[in-house]
């Protein structure tokens, strides 16, 4: 689960991480009221959306004039910000974070995540802050330091010293060194206790008056652990999530919207991905990832159809079910009932394989519904692409 920057900062502050004095507001009035309590030489007005790349997209404004803050907040609130992470549709700005600026002496990069190869938490640090770490990993990998933490003994003072030395902070005086080592220990404690899957401070800054401050913060929490962190779950912002995806999850469906025209309904995540890949290979574009799970009852199939059809781009549907424990004739029954009730108007190709696949196919063929049943995966993918591509495309191919 993603949280906003201001929420990440609030949660981190409870663990002793120092963040700039700031507040998230939803109106110009509130912005002006808040800024009147601040006294700084520079102010930041930052769009609060989950996607990254806000700065480059114009979602972060700086000003030295306190009286400008309200207008800057107004200029951002309510607009749709398009960053390289939001997709072309962008994300509406509902809140801005108003913060006191700080006098920056040095900017650093620091993050903490689980290294999948070792299964150990790892700090990633870089003496050049504020830049894209992925890009830096390609252009200057030597600048990046990785500090692995053995989960059985946890964070130890030597980890802090290693990070400090690699960032060159030992030359910045004893206060900075001490504050930094405390900060990394606190970050590790936060990460493990709150079941974060990623914490990124970019930039972490050393100020002119020797303070160590998280100027930006991005935290992602492990979805599997949210049940034991009600305080984290409380700050979930559903506005930032795709409506259809929220609706799908209510019915135990796993749905991710894409940009194509062929809706997919599949049991199992791996097979669902492979089905999308096959559609592409057959010359089509998948409209979504949709895993109906192991159950795939009539009810779930119906909900899945609803979700697929509410995407107006969908011109055809490919149902791909491998019946294992689930029997295909039951799923066929579910598809027929759902398709009849929903008046599905787009062509449907159903590929059934596994337990009682033949029976299932017979049921579908006798149903009188406008659908094509098959047992062969590749044939099914080609058929749905054929049925959804208009005559113009066919004539081009001919």
């Amino acid at each position, binding site marked *: 689960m993603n949280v906003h920057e201001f929420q990440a900062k609030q949660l981190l502050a409870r663990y002793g991480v120092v963040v700039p004095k700031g507040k998230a507001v939803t109106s110009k009035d509130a912005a002006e009221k808040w800024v009147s309590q601040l006294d700084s030489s520079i102010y930041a007005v930052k769009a609060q959306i989950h996607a990254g790349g806000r700065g480059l997209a114009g979602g972060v404004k700086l000003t030295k004039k306190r009286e400008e803050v309200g207008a800057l907040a107004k200029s951002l609130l309510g607009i749709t910000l398009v960053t390289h992470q939001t997709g072309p549709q962008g994300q509406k700005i509902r809140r801005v974070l108003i913060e006191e600026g700080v006098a920056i002496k040095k900017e650093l990069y620091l993050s903490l995540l689980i290294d999948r190869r070792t299964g150990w938490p790892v700090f990633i640090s870089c003496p050049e802050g504020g830049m894209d770490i992925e890009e830096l990993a390609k252009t200057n990998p030597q600048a990046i330091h990785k500090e692995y933490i053995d989960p059985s003994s946890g964070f130890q003072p030597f980890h802090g010293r290693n990070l400090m030395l690699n960032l060159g902070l030992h030359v910045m005086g004893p206060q900075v060194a001490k504050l930094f080592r405390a900060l990394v220990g606190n970050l590790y404690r936060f990460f493990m206790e709150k079941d974060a899957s990623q914490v990124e401070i970019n930039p972490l800054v050393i100020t002119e008056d020797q303070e160590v401050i998280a100027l930006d913060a991005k935290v992602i929490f492990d979805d599997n652990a949210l049940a034991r962190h009600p305080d984290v779950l409380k700050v979930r912002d559903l506005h930032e999530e795709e409506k259809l995806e929220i609706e799908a999850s209510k019915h135990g469906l796993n749905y991710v919207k894409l940009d194509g025209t062929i809706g997919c309904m599949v049991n199992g995540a791996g097979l669902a*991905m492979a089905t999308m890949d096959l559609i592409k290979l057959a010359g089509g574009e998948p409209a979504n990832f949709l895993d109906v799970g192991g159950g795939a009852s009539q009810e779930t199939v119906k909900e899945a159809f609803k979700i697929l059809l509410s995407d107006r781009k969908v011109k055809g549907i490919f149902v791909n079910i*491998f019946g294992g424990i689930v029997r295909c004739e039951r799923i066929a029954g579910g598809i027929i009932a759902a398709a009849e009730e929903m008046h599905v108007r787009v062509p449907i190709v159903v590929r059934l394989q596994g337990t009682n696949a033949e029976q299932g196919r017979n049921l579908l063929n006798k149903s009188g519904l406008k659908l094509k049943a098959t047992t062969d995966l590749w044939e099914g993918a080609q058929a749905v692409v054929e049925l959804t591509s208009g005559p113009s495309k066919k004539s081009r191919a001919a």
Partner: protein
Amino acid sequence: MSILVNKSTKVVVQGITGKEGGFHAGQCREYGTQIVAGVTPGKGGKKADGVPVFDTMHEAVEETKADTSLIFVPAALCADAIYEAAAAGIKLIVCITEGIPVNDMVEVKRSLVGTGIRLIGPNCPGIITVGEAKIGIMPGFIHKRGRVGVISRSGTLTYEVVKQLTDEGLGQTTCVGIGGDPVGGMNFVDVLDLFEKDPKTEGVVMIGEIGGDAEVQAAEFIKKMMKKPVVAFIAGITAPPGRRMGHAGAIVTGGGETAAEKMKVLKSAGAHVLDNPAKIGACMTQVLSSIENS
């Protein structure tokens, strides 16, 4: 021969009195697996479909000499179940449960280092040695005893491949679902190594997906250590970066984690990499017959 499990494997089911645990314990038994015990704290002394139930793993192992455990307990209780199995002397732990917090698995994985205990999963269909033992939730009837080993991060996509290998007449030796979570037990390299050493396995199908670098490690191993042919498919060529595709571990967050990049390194390591998952069985037939004819 086969790898990891066979007809003498003795299995205790943790969470046997639950709906899933009870159903699948029955299915495994029907397949011929020796399900010797079940464990559910508080339900000791009862029987679940004829299988004795114990309160603790320690009792279950002592009474039945079980060497393998199959876990169906809810996600929040899984770390505890794995620790209990390890403490009781279980040598192979197969964890089916999906949704275990990653940090729990970080600590579990670390605790198993150096113990010789093997963990399969979590969030996986389990393991089957065809005709001998099914320790998981896969449909037994699609398998056929044969020549090919299968390793996969997925469930139904594995069944898809297994069915193709059966239809081709090749059959399988052992099929291992290593699971779709970011931190788990055995990885591709561990299982490839066992298949390379297994005299019955002539070739291996490997099913990977986006996220992590387990396939890249596998490619390094294939290049250096494997003589047997590997046919590979990586799911998710159409998956957008930064989006989680069903499995907790199926997300591209960094370099080298996309399907295209994984396919490329596997190809250069000498694996037969397919872009069409419907043709995996046919490809293996071709690969094995070209070896026979050479």
